[in-house]
């Protein structure tokens, strides 16, 4: 792994954000809308139910953490799409750059962009709606870690799909978090779901995060074993996603896809 080559991939993204501040807007705009919308919903729910249950940490906290995962995933995919949109694959891959260095550059970019979104969400959620993560205690660390790793894995997997199927498949990638959220149980306990959906949920590491979060809000502690399992699963996703990208990349090298990457050339 050559740090200079990884830094080059990150620097390209920094130049893009610096050259066009409009790119910063989506990092903040969508999470702001989500926090404001769900902030008022939770405030309303608190007034309806009285003091029996506090919806702010249960729902607004969940929205914030799920948006964090989404931002991490989109941090990877958007950085990758920049090379798709500018048809830069030939320039990028006909160089000494290794796939691992390229992916590392995308991941570091995603860390930066998702932190911007996270900061905006924290400021809004705590400032306007009094959300505090103190009640989660140390469990917050594995929560954030699992969501971060899953977001990275989804981003790398999404990039693999677009590399394999072509630029038009970009629209398959954006809705991935929305498709997963009902299974993950962002807003409700997994026991609410039918059996087949619960079976899918058990395969998704973030499910354990949101179950753990609800357990804390309900006054119980999260199950350490399940949190450890979800961490292990998230690491497994990363390995699988990187393996998928590498296999798709090798296929693209074998078939000439990298050299002539466009919507028309992908078959």
């Amino acid at each position: 792994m050559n740090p200079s080559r990884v830094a080059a991939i990150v620097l390209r993204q920094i130049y893009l954000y610096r050259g066009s501040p409009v790119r910063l807007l989506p990092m903040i705009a969508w999470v702001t809308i989500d926090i404001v919308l769900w902030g008022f919903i939770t405030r309303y729910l608190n007034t309806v139910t009285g003091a029996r249950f506090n919806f702010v940490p249960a729902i607004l906290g969940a929205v914030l953490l799920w948006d964090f995962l989404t931002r991490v995933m989109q941090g990877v995919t958007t950085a990758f799409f920049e090379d798709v949109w500018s048809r830069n694959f030939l320039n990028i891959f006909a160089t000494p750059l290794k796939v691992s260095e390229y992916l590392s550059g995308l991941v570091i970019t995603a860390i930066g962009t998702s932190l911007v979104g996270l900061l905006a969400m924290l400021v809004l959620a705590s400032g306007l709606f009094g959300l505090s993560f103190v009640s989660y205690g140390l469990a917050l660390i594995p929560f954030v870690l699992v969501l971060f790793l899953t977001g990275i894995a989804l981003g790398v997997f999404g990039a693999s799909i677009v590399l394999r199927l072509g630029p038009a498949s970009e629209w398959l990638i954006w809705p991935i978090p929305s498709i997963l959220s009902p299974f993950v149980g962002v807003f409700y306990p997994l026991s609410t779901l039918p059996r087949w959906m619960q079976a899918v949920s058990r395969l998704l590491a973030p499910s354990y995060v949101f179950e753990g979060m609800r357990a804390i809000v309900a006054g119980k502690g999260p199950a350490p074993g399940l949190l450890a399992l979800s961490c292990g699963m998230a690491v497994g996703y990363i390995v699988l996603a990187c393996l998928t990208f590498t296999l798709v990349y090798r296929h693209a090298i074998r078939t000439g896809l990298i050299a002539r990457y466009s919507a028309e050339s992908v078959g």
Partner: protein
Amino acid sequence: MIPANSTAVLSVQGLCKTYGQTVAVNDVSFAVNRGEIVGLVGPNGAGKTTTINMILGVLEPTAGAIRIAGVDLAKRPSEALSNTNFAAVYAPLPGNLTVEQNLRVFGMIYGVKALGARIEAVLDEFDLLRFRRQKCGVLSSGEQTRVGLAKAMLNNPQLLLLDEPTASIDPSSARDIRARIRNFAAERQGAVLWTSHNMYEVTEVCHRVLFLAQGRILLQGEPDALIREHGAATLEDLFVSVAQQSLEAEA
């Protein structure tokens, strides 16, 4: 003429590429020596770009071996490609970065030492100093070609691959670029593989020409010698004749 003691920077042996039943490149072998400019010419679909893509490591050969500066491309691609660079009319640098930003990013990818000074040198060499803060996307095609060549020279490559580098530029700029490439080969002893459909250009620039058709090398030699040996008036006449024979053979 190429110095007698020149050594191969690029060595291609038995290169093949097939897509199902279609043979794009068929048992191609050649070498490009230090200080030598080799023209790779042939009709559309002859396999020129396929060959270049395999040398650039973005297309895996079905068979054969490629060595760049003695390094096996299949076994150590990153090391082999650090000795290489390329410019192609169909691979412009990202239009949403400035000239200088693009050079910095690619300079870091190629591990260029004293990058700031090197960027200044190539900006000056390719008359790009006044465009350094312009986004590449707003430059004319000739200016973009010069930026691509500046990127290609950034790491002082031992092997330079140029796929129709003068295809979209005016005669005056094309002459200028040919002079720079000749200078690169002569003074820095770089090896150059150059594809072009402009036979005048190939005659003027290349020490040696490889005629490729249907994925095979049909003829090779020094441009003037080939013209004499085949009794053609110009390299273009020879090219047309060889291409027609190839098409007739295919039919």
